[in-house]
């Protein structure tokens, strides 16, 4: 029989470090059924029959957040054999609050008190022996960071596994205990005996989700409700608050018996001293920008950029490409096979893998900032600005990373806890021009508008404007409406992160990208290669005679209102969806330019577009959905097809409308086009955009509540 140990604790208590320490490399990462909350389990090192289930980091078992619901449903329905509750010794009061709730589940529990070295350093003393007596469970002092006593904690848990819990701590007093005892008596036969206490408290708290599992008759429900009301009257408070207050009062009584403080209440810790500089009113923003610039500079501009260029141009472009080409030649492979392998697979998948060095670096820094505690400060500093347009303070980072590449940008949204803010950030962060779009900007502006020095930077400002205005407009739609999520956030004490933890964190994320996005991209590459290499008779032809050109012709009317009515424009737009760099490259190929020199390419595209159409082409490519790699990442990170579709369609609508407005109104205002249907449509689009941005926010709290209920 295998033993299941559930690892539970507050966020930032060292739970992940302990989990890594206990399971080593046997981890399995997935999602909890139906939600995007990460689920991790692993085998205890050296024990094939002991499974460690990591629960999300939570403060409480309330019915309000996704993580808490996931955790409590697991504990109530799947019944692990034992709970290993990890507690931050420097923050006993709030950590024990969760402990009091876990203790009611009737599952044996072992307490691992972490960071005791810091407690001792601060001059405090905790009497763990006494704590163990008061809570009726084993207590062990550990240091997850140094690996001290971690094994012992796991062994204590194994020894406790499956025991029946018969003693409860006396958390509640007087009339509350009286009411709870009454509820227990009334539902005695209706629930599993070990969960009696848990359900009694949940019924008292009016936790409808849990209470509904008991199937109370209406009569019994009313009867119990009368008792709860009596108690509320006596305590002059509502039931939920009574329970919370009594838990904290109980904890305060415990703390008085076990903790000898070496410092005064509200005194400054080392962390507070760091914060007096880092979140200082004057210095906070400059420090933030310096850190962000450094992260960007290292992972995108310099090391990451070099590594990506090298992977793309040298590794896949020359080494792998040459090896494959000569190998294929030596076995006299048919043309289509070498085309598929060299152009389709190596070209396509190589582009994807080229992002890996950047992604690794970005996630290295993200993990570093997160594990050290700085990320919470970012939210603290930036919240004021971003919540105005429906984003979170942490949305700044994905947008910044988006200047390098949309793929890690979308993945960087993982640090945003709130689902709504995260989805909005995913939808908007690729509007900032990425490094591939920068190629489009520089080619188009230098070819068609060589005198304008403002046009290129203007595109970045336009990107920011689109993000801000879209945020304002989307916040008012029913998808994102409602009160902003409560911002009640712990600023965890700074820690020197464990390098092992940071590296594991980084690798988990990058691996997900390589596997999942890689499979989608692989398929997409093969499909696009197929259509642009063959004609309808399955003969290998140049792109202008391929099925792709045929499709381009068939759909070129779609792009006519944007001034890109020829099949070449349509094909270039499709091809740019593979990788935005192609937007220019394909145009070059289509115009029969064989030289790689910029001048030749410029001369070629200059003959194809009017300046206005070129402008429209640039706007379309900047604001329509990003490349297929980024789209695959969006779909993966949304974790939901409907949301992925919403995001992509929104981007299609924005990109197309902006290009249309540019071409039609630009032509009318500056190039003497007559006013016609196109101009009319453009003006209607502008007015519609203004309406969505300026209309008052519909205030419907009720629909928001139901939506959240439904999402759960």
């Amino acid at each position, binding site marked *: 029989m295998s033993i299941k140990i559930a690892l539970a604790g507050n966020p930032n208590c060292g739970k992940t470090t302990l989990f890594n320490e206990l399971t080593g490399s046997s981890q399995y990462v997935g999602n909890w059924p139906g939600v995007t909350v990460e689920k991790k389990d692993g085998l205890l090192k050296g024990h094939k029959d002991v499974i460690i289930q990591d629960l999300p980091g939570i403060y*409480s078992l309330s019915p309000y957040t996704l993580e808490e619901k996931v955790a409590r449903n697991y504990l109530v329905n799947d019944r692990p054999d034992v709970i290993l509750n990890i507690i931050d010794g420097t*923050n006993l009061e709030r950590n024990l609050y969760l402990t009091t709730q876990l203790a009611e589940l009737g599952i044996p529990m072992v307490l691992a008190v972490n960071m005791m070295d810091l407690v001792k350093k601060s001059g405090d003393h905790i009497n763990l022996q006494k704590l163990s007596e008061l809570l009726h469970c084993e207590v062990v002092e550990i240091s997850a960071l140094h690996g001290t006593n971690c094994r012992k904690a796991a062994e204590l848990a194994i020894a406790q596994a499956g025991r029946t819990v018969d003693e409860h701590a006396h958390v509640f007093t007087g009339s509350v205990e009286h009411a709870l005892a009454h509820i227990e008596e009334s539902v005695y036969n209706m629930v599993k005996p070990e969960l009696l206490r848990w359900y009694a408290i949940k019924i008292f708290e009016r936790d409808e989700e849990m209470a509904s599992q008991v199937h109370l008759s209406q009569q019994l429900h009313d009867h119990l409700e009368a008792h709860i009301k009596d108690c509320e009257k006596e305590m002059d408070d509502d039931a*939920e608050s009574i329970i919370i207050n009594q838990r904290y009062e109980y904890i305060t009584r415990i703390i008085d018996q076990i903790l000898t403080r070496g410092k005064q209440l509200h005194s400054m810790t080392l962390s507070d001293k760091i*914060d007096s500089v880092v*979140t200082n*009113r004057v210095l906070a923003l400059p420090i933030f920008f310096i850190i962000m610039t450094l992260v960007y500079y290292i992972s995108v501009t310099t090391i990451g950029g070099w590594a990506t260029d090298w992977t793309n141009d040298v590794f896949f472009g020359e080494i792998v490409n040459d090896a494959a080409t000569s190998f294929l030649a030596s076995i006299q492979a048919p043309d289509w096979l070498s085309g598929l392998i060299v152009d389709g697979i190596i070209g396509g998948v190589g582009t994807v893998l080229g992002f890996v060095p950047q992604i690794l670096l970005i996630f290295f820094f993200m993990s570093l900032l997160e594990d050290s505690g700085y990320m919470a400060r970012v939210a603290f500093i930036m*919240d004021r600005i971003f919540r105005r347009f429906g984003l979170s303070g942490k949305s700044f980072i994905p947008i910044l990373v988006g200047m390098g590449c949309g793929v890690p940008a979308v993945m960087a949204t993982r640090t945003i806890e709130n689902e709504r803010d995260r989805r909005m950030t995913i939808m908007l962060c690729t509007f900032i021009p990425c490094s591939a779009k920068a190629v489009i900007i520089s080619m188009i502006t230098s070819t068609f508008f060589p005198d304008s020095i403002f046009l290129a930077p203007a595109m970045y400002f336009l990107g920011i404007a689109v993000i801000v205005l879209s945020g304002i407009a989307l916040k008012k739609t029913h998808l994102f409406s409602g009160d902003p999520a*409560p911002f009640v956030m*712990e*600023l965890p004490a700074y820690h020197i992160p464990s390098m092992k933890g940071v590296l594991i964190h980084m690798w988990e994320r990058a691996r997900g990208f390589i596997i999942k996005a890689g499979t989608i991209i692989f398929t997409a590459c093969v499909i696009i290669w197929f259509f642009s290499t063959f004609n309808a008779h399955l003969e290998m032809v140049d792109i202008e005679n391929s099925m792709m050109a045929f499709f381009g012709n068939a759909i070129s009317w779609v792009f006519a209102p944007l001034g890109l009515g020829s099949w070449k424009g349509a094909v270039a737009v499709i091809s740019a969806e593979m990788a935005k760099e192609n937007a220019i490259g394909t145009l070059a190929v289509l115009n029969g330019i064989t030289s790689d020199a910029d001048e030749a390419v410029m001369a070629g595209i200059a003959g194809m577009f009017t300046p206005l159409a070129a402008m429209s082409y640039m706007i379309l490519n900047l604001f329509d959905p990003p490349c297929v790699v980024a789209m695959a990442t969006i779909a993966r990170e949304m974790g939901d097809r409907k949301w992925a579709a919403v995001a992509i369609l929104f981007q299609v609508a924005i990109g197309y409308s902006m290009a249309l407005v540019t071409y039609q109104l630009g032509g009318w205002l500056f190039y003497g086009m007559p006013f016609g249907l196109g101009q009319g449509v453009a003006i209607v689009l502008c007015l519609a955009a203004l309406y969505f941005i300026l209309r008052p926010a519909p205030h419907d709290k009720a629909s928001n509540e139901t939506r959240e209920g439904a999402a759960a």
Partner: protein
Amino acid sequence: MYTLDQVPVGDTVVVKKIHGEGRTRRRIMDMGITKGVSILVRKVAPLGDPIELNVRGYELSIRKDEAVSIEVE
């Protein structure tokens, strides 16, 4: 009514009552802001919101919108 958003930085106050309802209120209380607890208002974010509190030995940040519902004395 004296609420937490009006407390000057550096002052320590005692919580009298938590107003409001639903998940925001529950979250505030889960995080340890309950009747009778002592709170130090540590600082205000560089752009004026949110605020940073020291409560039950740790640092908590909440928006002024949420602080309005916490009555103190």
